[in-house]
């Protein structure tokens, strides 16, 4: 099995008195998808910001291609091939698609003081790259603000892949998408993986993570709660761990108690409690 391309060991990050991350270790190999799962507030966003160079970890080691690295800005990470597609997309709504696509990495022609942005190339490439993703843009001059959520996500991912990302960090790329568009993004994750890119896929939806993931890291309250390969864990168990099985069990007992107390709506409560019980046992869907 190949060596990890990106690896962090015992990373911690503090914001004042808040411990955002504590002793977090994870890795991704080239051509694999590591899924980072966790509920809201689990520390996923902080971990991404550490991985992408926005935050410096307060403790721990960050290795890239076997070497220890220390990023002072996202540019440093990007230069090494670690590209991040943020939840808020890092897109400028008032700027056209092609200007957004190449923002920060503009292709140039000419020399010296006459070096200029190669606009023809930028427009053509934007159209082609999005075409490859199955997104047929109407007009590359359109402001990004006029695109739908799925289209924006696609532009952002296509951009990262185009710029030769070796590691692609995707922050909840499917969260705001409809079923069909989420499918497009998942297919694209697999495509990126097959091209030998190491993908870190952050999500809170195990149903999106399981089909594409090779490796699952579950983050909870700023710490690693579980770390499994696909063979080690079936989907049901992943769902259960994600949902926090124990918590759900407690909740179902409480609801049952409330239902036994009688009163209006107690039948309904009982049904809800049974539902939670089932989910806690991993019998979903």
């Amino acid at each position: 099995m190949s060596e990890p391309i990106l690896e962090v060991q015992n990373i911690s990050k503090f914001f004042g008195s808040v411990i955002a991350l504590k002793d977090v270790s994870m890795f991704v190999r080239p051509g694999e998808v590591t899924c980072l799962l966790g509920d809201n507030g689990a520390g996923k966003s902080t971990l991404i910001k550490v991985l992408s160079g926005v935050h410096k970890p307060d403790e721990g080691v960050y290795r890239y291609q076997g070497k220890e690295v220390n990023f002072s800005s996202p540019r440093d990470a990007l230069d090494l091939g670690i590209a991040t597609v943020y939840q808020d997309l890092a897109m400028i709504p008032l700027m056209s698609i092609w200007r957004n696509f190449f923002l920060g990495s503009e292709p140039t022609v000419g020399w010296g003081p006459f070096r200029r942005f190669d606009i023809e190339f930028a427009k053509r490439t934007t159209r082609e790259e999005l075409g490859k993703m199955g997104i047929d843009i109407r007009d590359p001059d359109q402001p990004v603000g006029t695109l739908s959520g799925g289209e924006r996500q696609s532009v952002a991912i296509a951009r990262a892949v185009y710029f030769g990302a070796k590691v692609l960090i995707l922050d909840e790329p499917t969260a705001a998408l409809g079923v069909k568009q989420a499918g497009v993004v998942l297919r694209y994750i697999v495509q990126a993986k097959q091209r030998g890119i190491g993908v870190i896929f952050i999500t809170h939806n195990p149903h999106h993570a399981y089909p594409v993931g090779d490796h699952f890291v579950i983050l909870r309250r700023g710490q690693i709660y579980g770390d499994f390969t696909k063979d080690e864990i079936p989907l049901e168990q992943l769902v259960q761990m994600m949902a926090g099985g124990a918590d759900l069990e407690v909740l179902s007992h409480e609801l049952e108690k409330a239902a036994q107390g009688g009163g209006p709506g107690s039948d309904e409560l009982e049904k809800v409690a049974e539902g939670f019980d089932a989910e806690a046992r991993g019998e979903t869907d």
Partner: protein
Amino acid sequence: MAVNTQPAPAAADERVREIGVLSRLLTRPELGALVALVVVWLFFAVVAADNNFISWATVAAILNRAAPLGILAIAVALLMIAGEFDLSVGSLVGFGGMAIMMLVTPVEAGGFGWTILPAIGVALLITLATGFFNGVLVVTTKLPSFIITLGSLFVFRGLAVAVPRSATNRTQLGGLDKVPGYGPVDALLGTKLELFGAKFDVAILWWVGLTIVATWVLMRTRVGNWIFGVGGDNVAARNVGVPVSRLKIALFMTTAFAAFLSALIQAFQFNGADSLRGTLKEFEAIIAVVIGGTLLTGGYGSVIGALLGTLIFAMVQQGIIITGVDGDWFKVFVGGILVAAVIFNNFVRQQATKR
């Protein structure tokens, strides 16, 4: 839209609606200013027809009036598109002019007695340093540039008054034409060109030339793309690797440079400098830029628009003078145009994102 050479998925994309030439034009930031320019010109052409408004002399007067402000507006536009303000630009005009004059004023009069070129060079460096200072303060404190440069507005105006007064006992320094090396530099900055029987300042060429350069930078270079990006979303631009801090500092230095050039040109035109020169120019430049279609919030705008906005500003000023209307009404007019321009721009931006 260019002809799509790829096989179309369907005969016609149901998502694309034919949009007319007009609504496509509406998405250009300069359009509002262009319309306003025509309206203002027509207005004075009718009202001031008897006062010789349609003449080369009036054209020259308007352009001569516009050029020093226009040079400021170019840099202010770039900075505003990048999402920042520079309220100190007017003070820097006074500061830069006094810096030059202090350096060339003879030693016995309290100055340094330098020749023209070294004085210009050093005064330029000093003024650029003030822009650097503004930029670094804004970038490091992350405070609104409005506040920071409001402070520098007073600091640099104060310096422009206090330093010359304590050294030379004056706030107006003249006699630039007596300084060795005056001639060739004056030909570049201070002369008038006779055309169509009217006298045009050479400053107009600087203004138009810099507008072309700045437009090229904004629309055709990577720095231009960064300017739009930083103004649109600071954090997003930083995340994709735009050197936001360096860009902003450079833009504050650009406004300082523009202030210096404006000061230099006026020093040659008026054969000296005045501590109070450039007073209120920061607001006039902002007005010109906003009339020109640039959003106060950044991310959208144009340098051509700033040129048109400056023209409107100067045309109104000149028009009111030659119509013989009480000059007190000028501010009422300008204020009205400003508010109308902002309302119109807001409408245009909504059209742009609805497209």
